[in-house]
């Protein structure tokens, strides 16, 4: 196909504009975090931080309870991702590989569960948690975050398991493996990219969760980072340097994890596509 010069330029030009548009907020967060306050409130924006300072990061890190909240966030996030993966693996295997009565109903059930508006059920959850004397605890958070990511984990893993040719499993079983062994030795290793992609999703959901912890945990020692961040700006007034440093610290783990896992998940996927 012949393309005019114009026809070659406009997609690239659009791509550049879009790239800038998508990256700028992220860039501006980090850039602001490193700029001294004078540069942040300059009449003309300082586009590149030239006088780099770590002061804002120090302020954020030294804010009361910061490290406790980091630990809380990591605990609830990791636990809920692991729990949901464990539960989902069994369910996804059954849904992908077995035929049984009620299968369709169950798939739709999990789809409906995926729609669950947790944000509007917080009053009921508050009452349940309170009546069980579990307010200001990380346990209910972990338990409900597990449930929040469970349906999508099941549905996605089901897709990944179904994508593994069943012949692989069958030949393993011919070689004398039980069904469970065939799953462990043959399917499970092939699921690595799928597990990474789904756990990434779960990680982000749990790391981000905000309404539930907002209402359940009033004790600052038992809160998580999103709540802290949403209140940070109020606490620090218009200290945008510190606020952006705090946001950067909060976003960084996800950004790193995303870029790292994304490639693995996608390369696994394209490999599969190439091999047919």
């Amino acid at each position, binding site marked *: 196909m012949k393309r005019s010069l114009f026809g070659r330029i406009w*997609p*690239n030009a659009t*791509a550049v504009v*879009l*790239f800038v548009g*998508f*990256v700028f*907020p*992220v860039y*501006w*967060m980090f850039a602001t975090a490193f700029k001294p306050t004078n540069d*942040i409130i300059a009449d003309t924006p300082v586009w590149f931080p030239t006088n780099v300072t770590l002061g804002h990061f120090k302020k954020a890190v030294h804010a009361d309870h910061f490290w406790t909240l980091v630990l809380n966030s990591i605990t609830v996030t990791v636990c809920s991702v692991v729990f949901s993966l464990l*539960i989902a693996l069994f*369910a996804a*295997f*059954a849904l992908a590989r*077995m035929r*049984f009565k009620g*299968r*369709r109903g*169950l*798939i739709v059930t*999990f*789809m409906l569960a995926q729609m669950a*508006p947790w*944000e*509007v*059920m*917080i*009053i*009921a*959850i508050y*009452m349940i948690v309170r009546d069980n004397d579990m307010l200001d605890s990380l346990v209910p958070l972990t*338990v409900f975050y*597990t*449930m929040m990511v469970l349906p999508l984990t099941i*549905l*996605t893993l*089901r897709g990944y398991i*179904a994508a593994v040719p*069943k012949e692989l499993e069958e030949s393993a079983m011919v070689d004398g493996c039980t069904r469970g062994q065939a799953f462990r030795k043959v399917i499970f290793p092939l699921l690595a990219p799928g597990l990474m*992609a789904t756990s990434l999703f779960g990680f982000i959901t749990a790391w*981000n969760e905000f*309404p539930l912890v907002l*209402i359940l945990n009033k004790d600052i020692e038992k809160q998580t980072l*999103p709540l802290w*961040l*949403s209140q940070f*700006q109020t606490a620090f007034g218009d200290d*945008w340097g510190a*606020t952006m440093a705090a*946001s950067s610290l*909060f976003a960084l783990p996800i*950004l790193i994890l*995303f*870029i790292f*896992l994304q490639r693995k*998940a996608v390369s696994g*996927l394209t490999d599969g*596509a190439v091999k047919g």
Partner: protein
Amino acid sequence: MSVQTQGTDTAGEPAVRKARIPGPPRGTGRDSGSASRGAAAPYLLLLPALLATLVLLGWPLVKNGMLSFQNLNPRQLIQHLTEWNGVDNYKEVLTGSDFWKVVERSIFFTAANVVLIMVFGTLIGLLLARLGKKMRLTLLVGLVLAWAMPVIAATTVYQWLFAQRYGVVNWVLDKLGWHSMADYNWMGTQFSTFSVITLLIVWMSIPFVAINLYAATTTIPRELYEAAALDGAGAWQSFTSVTLPFLRPFLYSTTFLEVIWVFKAFPQVFAMNEGGPDRLTETLPVYAYVEGVGNQHFGVGAAISFLTILVLLVMTSYYLRMVLKQEEDEL
């Protein structure tokens, strides 16, 4: 045929929001033939997931339904009193004008966001397919960065971008000639607050649509285009007769997911300006929160959240019916 398979694929499995998965290719057959061995096996494997769903989702849903028929205010809450009041909460909510205004606003807000996300997401996805390798990678990096930003961090950044003083947006608008925008308070009116929230949500949501759509286009067999070209189809015709039908199931399922996600969006709306100014940007989930928790009318809040779930179900019923039908065909 391939289009049909694609249909059940994307429909049966809501794609992952934060991971780039164009719906993994399915094996053709899915029954493994050993159903005879242990008919209870699938149920046992599903038991933990079902129990979790029943207890952790079912219980709050039932509890929510029960609370919505109770007179539950701070006094009853603190003293652990259960006072049933029939349908009073629903009467109060449904006869007030606030609720309907919020419903209307939520639907309009969801529609506007989803249309923007789908249109621009699709266009950018198609653009990705047209770009050269280097440029595509560059744009992908940009999209992934926006995609990976945690909601609350992104909301804070947008507050800073649109800050009245020293916000970079106001500075740019001023330089571009809108001098009245130099000290503009974006959180001052309903429309401008919604504009910022919409920009935030659209910015965060486009990558999911664009990247997945691009991945889906790479699975379209080249022969289809060749066949279309042989039949004398132009660029536009091959788009409408090959690309679009192939992507349709994907577009349906993505629209469905975006409707749910935007409609439920709580942190973006709440953390931006807590539903202000004057409660004019409260969408249904925020309204339920402010009425129920903020104003401590817990029973009324429960009734609102029940109605919210109903609205959500109505909005997505078309797609759910489609999925039910497809799953039926499959078996």
